[in-house]
């Protein structure tokens, strides 16, 4: 596979993420599929930030720990990343970085002084140098700066040009002549998927790595007709959302593990009151505050079991932007169809990773109609019918008295302690769970990739699929990825693992949560590989780990 990777690093505040995004666009316009990974500490200024842009001739959704171009705005970039770049092209900011063998230096200070440009434009100089070193046409740089910079385009171009003219081309990045695709983050894909299925309000309190959804939807609120609210805390977030839901507006909330802790009483209320709601939980390294800006997959069991009492919930865990878009829309539709809370379980790698996104390849999904009241009074919000799904009406509707209740209630929504009614309502909720379970058989709830007939299967969920898939191609293995985790797709998973004599579960947590879940549901898991240092698996690292396990 034709591919290349570029690492750009500098201090927090240098604009590394933006610079990475521009490099990603340059490679996108050179005909490559792109994935960008960013890593940054939880502070505003001064720490080391870096972005790795990987470009390949087919879709990729993970970075590698080997790069071809190393762009160092500071010395730390060299000190920390030189080892993953043994033979690569290095460009350094000569003002701050010691000369590197085979490297080229540019004096960013001199360029900025000559153009009387602010310090933040230093990364445009680095981009100019990179494009020349990679043999990219100047016209491409001009085009990308014009279409993706909101201000100071001409000055940035002059800065970039000075660096461009001062660097030698060392390796020509071969253009692939494939049309450029939109580049979006996982968080943006989630937001767009929710909009596709009729999102009309988004309520959220900022928390990394979910905040990107809040920022994206707030910025586009008018375009999508959204009410976007940032309330006092996550308790208010979920309760406000339930107010929206009760009033008939499609609503979602987003947070990470700590914020979701505060939402659990509201989650249980959604279960009892049968109020549809989408909850996006983007995981980071836990427990507690943990590593706020790093990834993890340790909240699977938490999301599956959070909230007192027993009630149906949908949990989907997409692996990349394409799946995030499709499954966020599905989550919204199924939340409303079954009047239940539905989770989109993401993680930092997916939420903040940037992907080539092909809207033609997402799968078809539109906002589905719900089953509504037939307008023959009296209205009973919890009418007991065979599916368990009571027809909906909303306050303001003529002659409908809509009563929802956190207590055990009768069909009209009035509190009761009758043993018979407690049993009846519990059974009603269980029937919805069964109906949802059946319905999911019509969805691709378990993904199989790689060599479908291989005797060794890599079992994974969420963003880890990207690394698993590449290892599977290298070693001719099977990848099995449940996309739905509740109701657990037991039959689809058993089928997906049929013929596999060795199942290896690969997760970014310490206790192999999916492995235990799969075993509970009748799928044998032979080996587990875990990683819990906050950094995602790269294919290179995972290959070594899988080979170790296979050599046993």
């Amino acid at each position, binding site marked *: 596979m034709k591919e290349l990777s570029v690492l750009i690093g500098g201090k927090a505040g240098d604009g590394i993420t933006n610079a990475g995004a521009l490099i990603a666009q340059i490679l*996108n316009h050179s005909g490559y599929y792109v994935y960008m990974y960013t890593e940054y500490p939880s502070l505003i200024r001064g720490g080391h930030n870096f972005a790795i842009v990987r470009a390949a001739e087919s879709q990729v959704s993970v970075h590698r720990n080997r790069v071809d171009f190393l762009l160092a705005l500071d010395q730390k970039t060299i000190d920390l990343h030189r080892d993953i770049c043994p033979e690569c092209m290095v460009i350094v900011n000569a003002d701050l970085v010691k000369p590197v063998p085979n490297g080229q230096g540019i004096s960013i200070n001199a360029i900025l002084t000559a153009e009387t440009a602010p310090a933040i434009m230093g990364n445009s100089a680095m981009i100019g140098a990179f494009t020349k070193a990679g043999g990219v046409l100047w016209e491409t740089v001009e085009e990308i700066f014009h*279409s993706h910079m909101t201000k100071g385009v001409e000055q940035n171009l002059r800065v970039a040009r000075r660096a461009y003219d001062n660097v030698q081309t060392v390796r020509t990045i071969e253009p692939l002549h494939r049309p*450029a695709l*939109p*580049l*979006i983050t996982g968080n943006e894909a989630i937001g*767009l998927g929710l*909009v*596709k299925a*009729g999102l*009309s*309000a988004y309520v959220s309190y900022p928390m990394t790595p979910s905040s990107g959804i809040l920022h994206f939807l707030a910025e*586009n609120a008018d*375009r*999508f*007709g959204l*009410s976007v*609210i940032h*309330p*006092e*805390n996550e*308790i*208010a*977030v979920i*309760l*406000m959302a*339930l*107010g*929206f*839901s*009760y*009033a*008939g*507006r499609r*609503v979602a909330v987003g947070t990470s593990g700590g914020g979701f802790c505060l939402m659990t*009483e*509201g989650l249980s*209320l959604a279960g009892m*009151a049968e109020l549809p709601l989408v909850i996006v939980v983007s995981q980071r390294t836990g427990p507690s505050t943990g590593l706020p800006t790093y990834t993890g997959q340790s909240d699977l069991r938490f999301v599956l079991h959070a909230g007192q009492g027993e009630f149906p919930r949908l949990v989907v865990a997409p692996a990349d932007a394409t799946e995030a878009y499709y499954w966020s829309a599905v989550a919204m539709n199924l939340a409303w169809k079954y009047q239940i809370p539905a989770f989109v379980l993401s993680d930092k790698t997916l939420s903040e990773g940037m992907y080539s*996104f092909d809207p033609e390849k997402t799968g078809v999904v*539109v*906002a589905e109609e719900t089953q509504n009241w037939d307008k023959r*009074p009296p209205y009973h919000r919890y009418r007991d019918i065979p599916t368990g799904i009571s027809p909906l009406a*909303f*306050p*303001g*509707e*003529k*002659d*409908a*008295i*809509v*009563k*929802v*209740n*956190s207590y055990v*209630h009768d069909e009209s*929504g*009035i*509190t009761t302690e009758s043993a018979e009614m407690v049993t009846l309502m519990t059974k009603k909720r269980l029937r919805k769970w069964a109906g949802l379970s059946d319905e999911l058989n019509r969805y691709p709830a378990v993904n199989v990739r790689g060599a479908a007939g291989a005797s060794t299967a890599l079992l994974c969920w969420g963003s880890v699929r990207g690394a698993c898939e590449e290892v599977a191609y290298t070693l001719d293995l099977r990848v099995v990825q449940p996309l739905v985790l509740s109701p657990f797709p037991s039959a689809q998973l058993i089928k997906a693992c049929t013929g596999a004599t060795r199942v290896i579960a690969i997760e970014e947590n310490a206790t192999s949560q999916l492995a235990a879940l799969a075993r509970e549901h009748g799928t044998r898991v032979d080996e587990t590989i875990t990683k819990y240092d906050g950094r995602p698996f790269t294919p290179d690292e995972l290959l070594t780990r899988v080979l170790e396990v296979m050599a046993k």
Partner: protein
Amino acid sequence: MIRSLITEAQNTWCPGCGNFSIQHTLKAVLDGMEKSGKSLDDVVLVSGIGCHAKIADYLNINSFYALHGRTIPVATGIKLANPRLTVICCAGDGDAYAEGLDHLIFAAKRNIDITLIVHNNRVYGLTTGQYTPTSPLGFTGKSTPKGTIEYPFNPVELMLASGATYVARGYTKKLSLLQQVIREGIAHKGFAYIDVLQICATFFNMTDQYNAKVYELAGYDPSSFEAACEKAREWDYNRDAPIALGTLYRRQLPTFDERFPVHAMTQEDRERGISEVLGTRR
């Protein structure tokens, strides 16, 4: 539709409970609204958890029987979702002043157009008698058998400080005044806060003390913030002092919900929007 405003749910409040007065008053206000042409289909009652909250079962209107402390965020969501609805919150003092204090302050800060009626009996009734944030110093309850060692806070002063645009106090033994402030609160465009001194017949019966101290505001200008603060501080919910009843403060300001107009979008609108965004990312 002709509806009885009272459901068939069996009423389980104690004899003599102040909640009867609030329910009776609210029913009279709703009746009045209906007579003046307002459809009660457009009214929603949100309650918390506690003795007060049973009102959601007893009044035959749209209701959201929520969680302890969480009436206000639910009501805020409903109002933002459909600004045409009249949203009334009934909360207990445990709800509004303990478990959900943050929401109370933010509702005032935002000036969301909802009406909050706090059934302030200054004791936890449903959990059988513990102190609340407005119980007087030394209150002996089941969790404080030797008496509380903390002062109550003054919720009226707190609401003035937080930016509430309608602040009033009622008393469950002064029904016509109670009806007047609830009616005014609902008519007020913005966050209306009404603290109702409510008798708890079983755990904290303050009838004699209140009867001796309450007075109705007369010749008073509720547009003055300074005057409202002075009235609010006259009684601190602890010491023996005159207790003003009526509208203490009223001011018109833009409301939170006005800033969130509802846009109905079609599937085509949404898809066009998605294409536009994707177009900028190419």
